[in-house]
């Protein structure tokens, strides 16, 4: 199926791969923000996950261990943020920005010896005859396991927030931490757990970039994906299912502009490279204008420090 020099099936198949890092990071940040913490360090956690995952995979030869390493590194960055903002009550915005700068610098340092190295390859999940189904097989059954994991995580996050008691407590902490504290819930502990989850997912997203999507290590390779993840959370009104749409939109336009470049369209490369960022933001803004509840859906305690006044 080829339209205007672009193979639609390849496009959709590529879209899922291109979206996965942002989807993972956005899902993690969504959970953290639902608990009332604004962590602007997503970009920093992603790039740290990217380099740590890459280094682990190259040194052990196991991509799976690489992803574990990336997630742990992201979670470690998040715990640094948690100690500063939850224990020492530093300003969340400033700390988040610092975390991003720190992550970018740290990853460049760690990554130096790994430049130009090829990581061990991650194979596609063997679906057997399923992947031979025309059209659907290429779109749905031709990916690596992390793509399916990311989709599963979105579903699990959605169900966790909506149906479980732990999810209810997490939302309550994000709505009104004073009330949650008065009822005897441990606000700081809940927020640290949510932050760690958010960091792990951002790290996982970063590792996906360096191990599968690119796959190699280059300095600053996240290229703003963490910021896109943050924007997606806001415009998705803090709902996982909408974050999925936002992430796939971003991935879709990324895939499309790459295909347009490959097809040799006479559009300046810079405009094409810019397109995913601009169009994602524009579409999400329009969406949140249509759903006027956009900003009001924010967790009421988002970004506010909690201190139990004994």
């Amino acid at each position, binding site marked *: 199926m080829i339209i205007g020099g672009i193979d639609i099936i390849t496009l959709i198949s590529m879209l899922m791969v291109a979206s996965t890092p942002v989807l993972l990071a956005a899902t993690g940040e969504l959970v953290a923000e639902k608990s009332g913490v604004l962590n602007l360090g997503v970009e920093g956690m992603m790039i740290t996950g990217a380099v740590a995952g890459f280094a682990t995979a190259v040194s052990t030869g196991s991509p799976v261990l690489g992803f574990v390493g990336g997630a742990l590194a992201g979670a470690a960055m998040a715990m640094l943020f948690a100690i500063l903002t939850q224990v020492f009550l530093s300003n969340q915005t400033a700390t988040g920005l610092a975390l991003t700068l720190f992550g970018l610098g740290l990853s460049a340092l760690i990554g130096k010896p790994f430049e130009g190295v090829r990581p061990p390859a991650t194979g596609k999940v063997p679906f057997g005859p399923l992947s031979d189904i025309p059209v659907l097989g290429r779109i749905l059954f031709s990916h690596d396991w992390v793509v399916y994991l990311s989709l599963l995580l979105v579903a699990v996050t959605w169900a966790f927030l909506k149906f479980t*008691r732990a999810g*209810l*407590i997490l*939302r*309550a902490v994000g*709505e*009104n931490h*004073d*009330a*949650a504290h*008065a*009822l*005897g*819930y441990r606000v700081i502990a809940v927020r640290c757990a949510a932050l760690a989850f958010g960091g792990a997912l951002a790290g996982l997203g970063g590792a996906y970039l360096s191990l599968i999507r690119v796959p190699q290590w280059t300095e600053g390779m996240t290229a703003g994906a963490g910021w896109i993840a943050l924007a997606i959370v806001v415009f998705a009104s803090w709902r996982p299912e909408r974050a999925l749409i936002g992430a796939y939109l971003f991935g879709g336009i990324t895939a499309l502009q790459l295909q347009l470049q490959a097809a040799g369209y006479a559009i300046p490369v810079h405009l094409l490279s810019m397109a995913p960022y601009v169009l994602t933001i524009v579409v999400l803004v329009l969406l949140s204008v249509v759903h006027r*509840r956009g900003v*009001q*859906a924010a*967790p*009421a305690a988002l970004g506010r420090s909690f201190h139990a006044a*004994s």
Partner: protein
Amino acid sequence: MTEILLKIDGLTKAYPGVVANDHVGFSVAPGEVHALLGENGAGKSTLVKMIYGLVKPDSGTMEFLGRPYTPAEPRAARAAGVAMVFQHFSLFEALNVAENVALGMENPPPMRDLAKRIREISQAYGLPLDPARLVGDLSAGERQRVEIVRCLLQDPKLLIMDEPTSVLTPQEVEILFRTLRKLSSEGTAILYISHKLEEIRTICDGATILRGGKVVGSCIPREKSARELAEMMVGGEFAATERVSRPFGAPMLEVKGLSLAPLSQFGPSLKDISLSIAAGEILGIGGVAGNGQEELLATLSGERPSAPGTVWMKGADISALGPNPRRALGLMSAPEERLGHAAVPNMSLTDNTLLTGTIRMPLVKNGFLNMAEAKAFAEDIIREFDVRTPGPWVAARALSGGNLQKFVIGREVLQKPEVLIVNQPTWGVDAAAAAAIRRALLRLAEKGAALIVISQDLDELMEIADRFCALNEGRISAPRPTEGLTIDEIGLMLGGAHGMEVPA
């Protein structure tokens, strides 16, 4: 009484610089409605927080049902059979009623069963509630029901209520009291904190009076007059407010057909408000907070602009003017929220005078602040309004609520306004300070200023206002002279009890 449910002995809790509770002891019998009485800062809140496990006592013992009782956290207190309804509601606006209830329970049943039990319990106690509604859409009275139902679902033996009636209409208070009597007749003891003395005389079987963290007496409230109770609380003679009849002058401020759209989803709006107030007159606006009170003050003070031709002062349209031009004309205001709205918490009292005082007072010269004048002005306020503070250099947040309120009101009153609008002038302020603030407002009116007093405290409005009107869901009722107005009539003006209808 032989049987004792809760016995407290020698309970002490000190914070840096202040002993909140000093060897406090009392006991509560099953089914007893026991009042804790005291001024602000007397230590009532700390005491109940210790009983509910939110604060650990430094020393002293508690016994519950004859066994030692040392709750490490609210969970343990709830497990023992102690439940608490908070002064500032511990509710989550973006969650629905059932979710809010579930959060306050140890082992909530699945949502479907819980919704059914909420309906049953709330009907049985005359507090109808729809479990699926968002708490953000509920009135203050309904929100309190959510808290109470949350407690009742756990069959508490002791129910602690911290200032439960401050946000209710008189009819809602009646409903609440019926519920409390039913609970008490079933053997549930109630620890009732309030500084509304008439209520305590109506509902409570016994009372413990706290002053400065110590127990200074106990009594049976029914056998004392409200005045005697107040004197026990304050520990001295109690100066009541004297009212002198005054002549009214020309109309000072007029509002014509003022409407305002809500700012947020759960925010109140204003709908077609018209009123007029004359020199020397005090207009009382009653109603439960959150029905447009803040919005009304914001539009009158100039904080939020309104449509042309809606706000008039001395015959001139001032709808388009901001707060400072209005101050120049003599229209001042004191909002409800003391910290963050009326005063900047981290700025000194001197600096805080500059926030509203630069227009009518000589605090600025050639664009430079005149700090000496500002300090003198702050000292004037502190002296005239008996603000208890070491001096004008103290940060606003370091003052207790009552003292800061006196400062905020004093700052406006001493600038000799021609029109003064205040919202909740004595909210959370103890009896003596509240009386001082009311006297200051009356004196201002005697000098010919026009005052609008917005308050939830109906007794206060009856005491100082000449005319009364109710603000409910953004609409204002026709004003009526306060003389001869009964509490029932006021209740009806306030729209009766919110959400009386049983949900389908």
